[in-house]
């Protein structure tokens, strides 16, 4: 008779280390849903949409809130609503699929496990995102979790929520609009020249910082870090070495091109106003 060795607590590790990437649109949407939640609800729950990139990262691109009812011992989620919204969203963007769900609030509660189970039936290995809207720690906490099943032999014990690294990134166009997105009130959208002005101011501040740092290092006020020093020298060396003559020629040529275009466009606008007068002039018959 074979001896039955001690049963071991098996934790099935995830094959690859999953990490998640969240677009700021999702955070905005979650905050908006939280602000608009019905009066009796303590937190908001919703679905996360996105895709899984080839290297295993979960890219969360969009989300929508799902009405739910929560009491002490049970949770009810409006599944029809969830499916309706999913089909509507997929009509616009068929590539977006369910990758998980979000909830506002700090911890992962017992009811979260039930909801997570529901979502694991919809998508494989869903990601659970918690967005702490109450700032319990005095700062923002956005965490992502994946559930790992703990099983004892054949018996399924519990699901452990393991935290997963999260990356919040902004695409270029959104970065341009970032000035506009941060404060609570912006009076008007900056136009071309104002944007350039702000940008040049920032560049100047950057260069000043680097200058100050180098000064500090030279005068031994700050400990030297050879990596930073090498980086700075690399940056400065990457300026193309052109003779002043060639450089001036380059700049002047581009200036002339731009001036030409400006001239052309002013001619065109003048032509337009003349054409306008001609077209609506009274007919002399």
């Amino acid at each position, binding site marked *: 008779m074979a001896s039955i060795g001690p049963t071991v607590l098996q934790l099935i590790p995830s094959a690859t280390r999953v990490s998640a990437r969240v677009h700021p649109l999702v955070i905005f949407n979650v905050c908006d849903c939280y602000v608009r939640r019905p009066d009796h609800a303590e937190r908001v729950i919703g679905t996360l949409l996105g895709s899984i990139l080839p290297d295993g990262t979960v890219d969360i691109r969009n989300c929508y809130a799902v009405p739910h009812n929560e009491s002490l011992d049970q949770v009810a989620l409006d599944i029809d*609503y969830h499916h309706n*919204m999913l089909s*509507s969203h997929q009509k616009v963007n068929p590539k977006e699929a369910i990758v998980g769900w979000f909830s506002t609030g700090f911890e992962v509660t017992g009811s979260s496990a039930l909801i997570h189970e529901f979502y694991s039936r919809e998508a494989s290995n869903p990601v659970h995102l918690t967005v702490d809207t109450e700032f319990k720690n005095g700062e923002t906490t956005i965490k992502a979790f994946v559930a790992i099943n703990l099983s004892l032999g054949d018996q399924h014990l519990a699901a452990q929520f393991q935290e997963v690294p999260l990356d919040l990134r902004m695409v*270029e166009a959104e970065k*341009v609009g970032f000035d506009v997105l941060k404060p609570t009130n912006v009076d008007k959208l900056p136009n071309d020249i104002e944007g350039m002005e702000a940008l040049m101011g920032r560049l100047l501040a*950057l260069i000043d910082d680097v200058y100050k740092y180098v000064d500090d290092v030279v005068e031994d006020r700050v400990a030297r870090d050879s990596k930073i020093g090498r980086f700075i020298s690399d940056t400065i060396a990457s300026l193309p070495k052109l003779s002043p003559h060639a450089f001036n020629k380059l700049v002047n040529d581009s200036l002339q091109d731009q001036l030409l275009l400006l001239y052309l466009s*002013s001619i065109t606008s003048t032509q*337009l106003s003349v*054409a306008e007068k001609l077209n609506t002039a009274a007919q002399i018959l």
Partner: protein
Amino acid sequence: MANTATRSFLQVAATEEATTPLRVVQIEGLVILKIIKHCKEFSPALVTGQLLGLDVGSVLEVTNCFPFPIREEDEEIEAEGANYQLEMMRCLREVNVDNNTVGWYQSTLFGSFQTVELIETFMNYQENIRRCVCIIYDPSRSNQGVLALKALKLSDSFMELYRSNNFTGEKLREKNLSWVDIFEEIPIKVSNSALVSAFMTELEADTPVTQCDYDRLQLSTSPFLERNVEFLIECMDDLSMEQQKFQFYYRNLSRQQAQQQAWLQKRRAENMARKNAGEEPLPEEDPSNPIFKPIPEPSRLDSFLITNQIANYCNQINGVAGQSFSRLYLMKALHEN
């Protein structure tokens, strides 16, 4: 004796509420992000979506939006589009989003959005909603480092003219309407809820390093300018075609006038002869004669729209050229150091 300070109920009910003119469009950061994301994902295809919000006094608040799926040119799919819209509105209402349509947004390519379809869509919306606005987003320009978002509205005088479908030169002179007056641009204000603002401040630290949007410092603007000038040239071709139409019309009109005069002379001579012979004079008009048929004047709407587009392109070129100047001078200054 009637007190002049108090008005009778009838009087108050009779005076119409003057609608305050729309001064500002207030958009939430969420809507901007959604529009950017949607337009960028499908660029270069053009996409549209619906704007939801509230109409408060002289401010039009836009608080949410949802995209429209790309529609095929098929009859049965039209109904599906309407269904999709109703479904989305119903679902959004359940989560307490403002259920009120205030307009629509669309993406554009290099600013070529002034078309007859735009005007027609405006008129359709205007039937149902008192105030609606159209937001135009240009993803190609945003790659240059400018947030190219514009809020447009048709001017009232233009709308009346369009309804009567009368675009002759006289009518336009009467109303003193030129191509500048078709679209009115409304300034945009952005507002964010305090919660969102707190999150953003934490997530993106205030250090200048992460904040620099280096796209603006790109020196190579030539592909963008090239496309712009290409479109400008095409539009000029269209404009010259329209002008030729007018020339043709004028020529025909003057030719017809000359023919009419000649015919009238002949008639008069005949009448003189008949009077001398003692017969009844013939009428001096003959509506059945084709030379008296009035030639319809071509509509000026197309030329107005094209003119608008050209003006837009010119403005864009000006803006980009201005930016390039600053960049080039910056380069020069850096190099000298």
